[in-house]
């Protein structure tokens, strides 16, 4: 029996249109806009000003405080301005706009792997410093600074590193391609992270609908035999959720409000592992990533190695251009991605995909009354009662919402996906969560 998580979960159609498309580098855009806030936490402080010449890999924004991340230029060229640019969240936030001139890299970045040094020679401190310097954040979409996740709070004992290769979002194939094309590098990166955490054991979780990635990673593990295990998982959404993945692989349950480290586990996404590999062995900061560009109406769905700050429009152009019937463009996958206000929005460190949805499928159907069919309850991976959270939210029963554990909701959208009455459950639950959040804040000082 293959492992998976309980309770709940759904089976949306996979629609992995681009899983056989090898990753190709995207031609450089004419200009990029590099947001200073591509991570959870405090935005970076800009280190450049209008008119400055920058090189690819050069630090242009410095992390502020413990929860923040460095930002580097992804191209060489001239800084045109630092201005507010609308990002995937729909808000305008400061970004460094650079006109691209040539492709000159900062001298500190080497083009090959760790010249003159054996890979095991890196110390824990060196690894952490390299990750910190490179501005690496969780690349599965959470964008939490990786350095922080690698420094467990005192008193906690990490025993297992889980590498998240699940990619349970329909359509997305960036992680899938990475596991096929960069299996060796991923193992080296995993070793680095194990060393940084001081753990002896790592498990790579991959759903069994990616047999080529499973085979590739298994083969690499056999060749290098490094105390790393590949764990095939039964397909179920949202298995890529941290808590669900830990449950699937170890059977352990992360308590509400707690971090995975409370059960001795740390989870990192394969994209993050690859970025760590490059940062440590080549001094290469996180300035480019694999982005899946996909959608049923696109003529050439594919996977592109893309510089951070590239407008989404360039990616769509490479994939055959924006179809005339486009209704929605999404950063990320269809379950948790964000609808973009325009294709001028740029790729950031956390952008795993760009999904184009035709107009005919872009609109929600009108919501009807809840018929109490229990399907949302069965689908919820956190064992909540989405219909009840929705009702309590509609009646603004904030305290009852808190008691019904609305804060456990991971916003996976499974309830919305299943509801035969097309209720906008998650929309209302999100509002409820923010109200409960405010309520909790007012309570804190006492």
């Amino acid at each position: 029996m293959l492992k998976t998580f309980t309770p709940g979960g759904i089976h949306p159609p996979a629609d992995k249109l681009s899983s056989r498309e090898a990753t190709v580098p995207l031609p450089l855009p004419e200009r990029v806009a590099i947001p200073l806030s591509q991570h959870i936490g405090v935005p970076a402080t800009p280190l450049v000003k209008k008119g400055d010449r920058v090189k690819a890999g050069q630090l242009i924004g410095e992390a502020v405080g413990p929860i923040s991340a460095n930002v580097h230029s992804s191209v060489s060229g001239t800084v045109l301005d630092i201005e507010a640019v609308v990002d995937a969240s729909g808000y305008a936030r400061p970004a460094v706009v650079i006109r691209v001139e040539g492709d000159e890299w900062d001298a500190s970045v080497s083009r090959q792997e760790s010249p003159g040094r054996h890979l095991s020679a890196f110390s824990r401190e060196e690894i952490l410093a390299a990750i910190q310097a490179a501005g690496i954040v969780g690349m599965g979409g959470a964008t939490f600074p990786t350095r922080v996740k690698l420094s467990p709070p005192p008193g906690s004992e990490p025993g297992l590193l889980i590498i998240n290769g699940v990619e349970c979002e329909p359509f997305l194939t960036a992680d899938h391609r990475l596991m096929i094309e960069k299996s060796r590098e991923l193992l080296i990166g995993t070793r680095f992270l194990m060393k940084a955490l001081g753990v002896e054991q790592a498990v790579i979780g991959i759903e069994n609908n990616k047999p080529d990635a499973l085979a590739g990673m298994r083969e690499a593990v056999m060749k290098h035999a490094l105390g790393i295990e590949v764990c095939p998982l039964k397909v179920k959404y949202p298995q890529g959720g941290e808590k669900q993945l830990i449950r699937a692989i170890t059977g352990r349950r992360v308590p509400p409000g707690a971090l995975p480290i409370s059960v001795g586990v740390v989870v990192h996404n394969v994209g993050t592992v690859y970025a760590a590999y490059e940062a440590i062995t080549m001094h290469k900061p996180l300035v480019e990533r694999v982005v899946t560009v996909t959608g049923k109406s696109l003529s050439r769905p594919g996977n592109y190695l893309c510089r951070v700050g590239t407008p989404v429009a360039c990616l769509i152009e490479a994939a055959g251009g924006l179809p005339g019937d486009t209704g929605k463009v999404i950063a990320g996958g269809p379950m948790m991605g964000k609808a973009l206000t325009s294709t001028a929005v740029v790729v950031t460190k956390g952008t795993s995909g760009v999904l184009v949805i035709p107009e005919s499928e872009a609109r929600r159907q009108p919501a009807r009354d809840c018929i109490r069919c229990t399907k949302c309850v069965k689908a919820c991976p956190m064992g909540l009662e989405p219909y009840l959270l929705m009702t309590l939210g509609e009646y603004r029963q904030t305290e009852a919402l808190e008691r019904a554990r609305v804060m456990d909701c991971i916003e996976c959208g499974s309830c919305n996906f299943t509801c035969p009455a097309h209720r906008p459950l998650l929309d209302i639950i999100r509002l409820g969560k923010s109200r409960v959040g405010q309520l909790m804040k007012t309570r804190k000082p006492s």
Partner: protein
Amino acid sequence: MNKLIISPSPHVHGGDSIERNMYGVLVALLPALLCSILFFGWGALYVTIAAVASAMLFEYAIQRYLLKQPATIDDGSAVITGVLLAFNLPSTIPLWLVMLGALVAIGIGKMSFGGLGNNIFNPALVGRVFLLISFPVQMTTWPVPRGFETTDAVTGPTPLVFVKQALREHKPFVEVFSPAGGGRDLLDLGTGSGIGGSLGEIAAFALLLGFAYLLIKRVITWHIPVSIFLAIALFSGILHWIDPAYAGPLFHLLSGGVMLGAIFMATDYVTSPMSPRGMWIYGTGIGALTIIIRNFGAYPEGVSFAILIMNAFTPLINKYCKPKRFA
């Protein structure tokens, strides 16, 4: 460039709909409908058509003219109410009573609460119980199935009448309910041949076929029907073991409205609990109450009352039975 649509995630939907589930239930009811027409002749069909048509008509009229809402009769739920009401009636019932029942079911049982999703009691059962209390004679005159040959309907007792008879005479139930005593073979209960009863109370096997369909199509889960079956088997088994004058599990399971009630009426989305644990409590309650009413109550049949009583407990069950949390 054309304007992009902005909406929060998720951006896809599984494609399930209220209609898909409601029509799923109707498909599952088809084998039983065919059986009842086969056994009771055209009368069964007339009663069903009358119930469905009037349920839809009343729902439409109330929504259009009383509540001034858009009509939703195409969602299939009024059709189900109609079919289920018909399945609870004898095939010889005057059609004006069928229409009255449908009016009560839709008007009082469903629309007065705010329509589909908001009602507390199963609408079809509200209609049925109203008719049973107001018109006891017409509602308990059961024709014996004679297919299409019926010229004059012959009426006879439903098997459940034998339950109380055995208890009154204090004879072992198997003796009273035997072909010699005017009863039937247990197997006949399953196939429905020669058994008096309402349209849907016959042919347990046809109803079980519908159950399988509902499970395969994931319209309902097994929890409620199975817990009702188990509870009925358990409680009747205990009584039968104490005193053989009480009918045994198999008889209770196959006779009367147990199959129809457990599979199609207790599982009504709106009026049944939301968590598996709640479903077990609800189903066990229905099973226990059914056996109590059948053996000790005034009426020979208790499934409808049992379901309505547990309907009333559903909000309470939902309050205290939560699904298993993640952690």
